């Protein structure tokens, strides 16, 4: 630490105060000690979270991994623990996330393009910006209540019931602000000179955005999108409120009909297993379900990283 030498000038050298070299030296030593303690403290704080994360992962995997097998992955939920699995919930979760991605990515990218490339600085734009940053901080369960009142039971238009589409729409509203914020940041990182270059050739703004700005921004935006969507994958509370099935004794069909049927989801299935009376559910099936969910999350995120790296390598 090079700073420790610079201390040799402050304390005790105030005007009028006699310079006492020994006393001065002592202060310096005390300060050195406090400094060292502080360094230890901040380092410990920074690594505290990582340590807890490691303990959590080890604990969960130790509890759950022995119970993850083919039977568990391919079975539906059941009241007898030996027969129970996560298949229905897993399919439900995958459908939910795909649907949510299909809804939010075009809308989120479009909104971000409007705010970043088109909108002038006026009252409405500022209102939209404040709204988006506030929406990003609204608790997820509130979105569940919104989905319940708006999509499931209907407020102005008739409700659609607790179907997969209602769940996906609810999750979409939840992740949309995050996707917009991530895409905007990526668009902002594209230098203005690229836009000028295109415009100076007689291109319209959309032509420049479509061909130059968006392709440059996409890898960065992609990371944010995948993070947002994987957050949606782990969301439990809003789906419980909009009436996802806690006990997935069926798997939604892989067809458009699934949109209008009921559905389960992985995190909800886990919650359900934790709540069950028989200890096998809480002690074996719940952690096994968590292991499956964490692996899916890990896969999704690795795909995002690979995709981004490949994209960046290409340019």
């Amino acid at each position, binding site marked *: 630490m090079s700073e420790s030498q610079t201390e040799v000038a402050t304390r005790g050298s105030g005007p009028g105060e006699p310079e006492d070299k020994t006393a001065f030296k002592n202060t310096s030593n005390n300060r050195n000690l406090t400094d060292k303690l502080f360094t230890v403290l901040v380092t410990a704080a920074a690594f505290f979270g990582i340590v807890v994360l490691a303990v959590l992962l080890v604990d969960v995997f130790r509890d759950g991994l022995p119970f993850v097998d083919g039977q568990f992955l391919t079975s539906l939920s059941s009241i007898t623990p030996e027969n129970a699995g996560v298949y229905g919930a897993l399919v439900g979760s995958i459908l939910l996330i795909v649907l949510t991605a299909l809804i939010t990515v075009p809308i989120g990218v479009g909104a971000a393009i409007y705010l970043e490339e*088109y909108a002038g600085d006026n009252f409405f734009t500022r209102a939209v910006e404040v709204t988006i940053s506030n929406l990003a901080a609204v608790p997820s369960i509130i979105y569940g209540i919104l989905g319940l009142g708006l999509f499931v039971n209907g407020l102005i238009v008739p409700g659609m019931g607790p179907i997969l589409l209602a769940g996906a729409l609810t999750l979409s509203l939840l992740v949309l602000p995050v996707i917009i914020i991530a895409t905007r940041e990526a668009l902002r990182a594209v230098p203005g000179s690229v836009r000028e270059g295109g*415009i*100076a*050739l*007689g291109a319209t703004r959309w032509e420049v955005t479509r061909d130059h700005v968006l392709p440059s921004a996409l890898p960065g935006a992609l990371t944010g999108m995948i993070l947002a969507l994987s957050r949606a994958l782990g969301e439990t509370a809003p789906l419980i409120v909009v009436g996802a099935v806690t006990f997935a004794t069926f798997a939604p069909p892989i067809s458009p009909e699934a949109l209008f049927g009921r559905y389960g989801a992985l995190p909800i299935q886990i919650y359900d297993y934790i709540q069950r009376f028989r200890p096998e559910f809480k002690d074996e099936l719940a952690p096994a379900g968590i292991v499956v969910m964490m692996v899916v999350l890990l896969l999704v995120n690795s795909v995002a990283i690979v995709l981004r790296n490949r994209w960046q390598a290409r340019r």
Partner: protein
Amino acid sequence: MVNIRRIGEEQRVRETSKDVAKGGAQQTPESNGMTVEDLSAFYGSFKAVTDVNMQIKRNKVTALIGPSGCGKSTYIRCLNRMHEVIPGAYAEGKVALDGQDIYAKGADPVNIRRRIGMVFQKPNPFSKSIYENVAWGAKINGYRGDMDELVERSLKQAALWDEVKDRLKESGYSLSGGQQQRLVIARTLAVEPEVILMDEPASALDPVSTQKIEDTMEDLKKKYTVVIVTHNMQQAARISDYTGFFYIENMGDPGRLWEFDETSKMFSNPDRKETEDYVTGRFG
């Protein structure tokens, strides 16, 4: 970062081909080149350039010189309506290209920028292949001819063809700074503009690249009207036919076109003392 915002109101435009035909057909002397009348440029409430009057001759090189911050770059950006792309920026006055006011109601800035191309201070190639960099502008402007031939011809005009002909698929960023700037020139030529504006095109480049760009300019002026902003007095004297000197008398005033004349006169026997001081290197 310059965030480009909406460009004024989008106006309806007549058939492009008609405009194009007009651009070439009218050859009367008074409509030749560009005429600037009482042009002022603003950033919000701040007036950056005031009351410029200038006759930019066809197929000649016009150089704009002057100390930093006196509005040369702002002014040149007004000549193809790039200035208004900056949020809050606008221009007043008249700029006519071959007799047509580019600021007239109904004039389409998108089409104007096709006809009046621009090369920027720092090379700004697109993050696409060299070929795509040149072809893109032509593509979006609806070019129906042989694209390979157009790309080759444009790269040759920009004196870049020999260096890149074997690597057209490589990214535009793989080129050196000087090559990138020539790529930008080729890209601009590929949309077949009538006027080329250059805003200190060599300021970010090494002397060798600068030399190459000056050489291309020598060729360009046979076919195009060129306006170039430069800090380099020798460069202005070497390549231009006309020179405009921009100057700000008092701090905080807007920039003015202080003197405008044939380059030979501006560098040997200017009318105004400030011009003489500047071209002889006494300040700036």
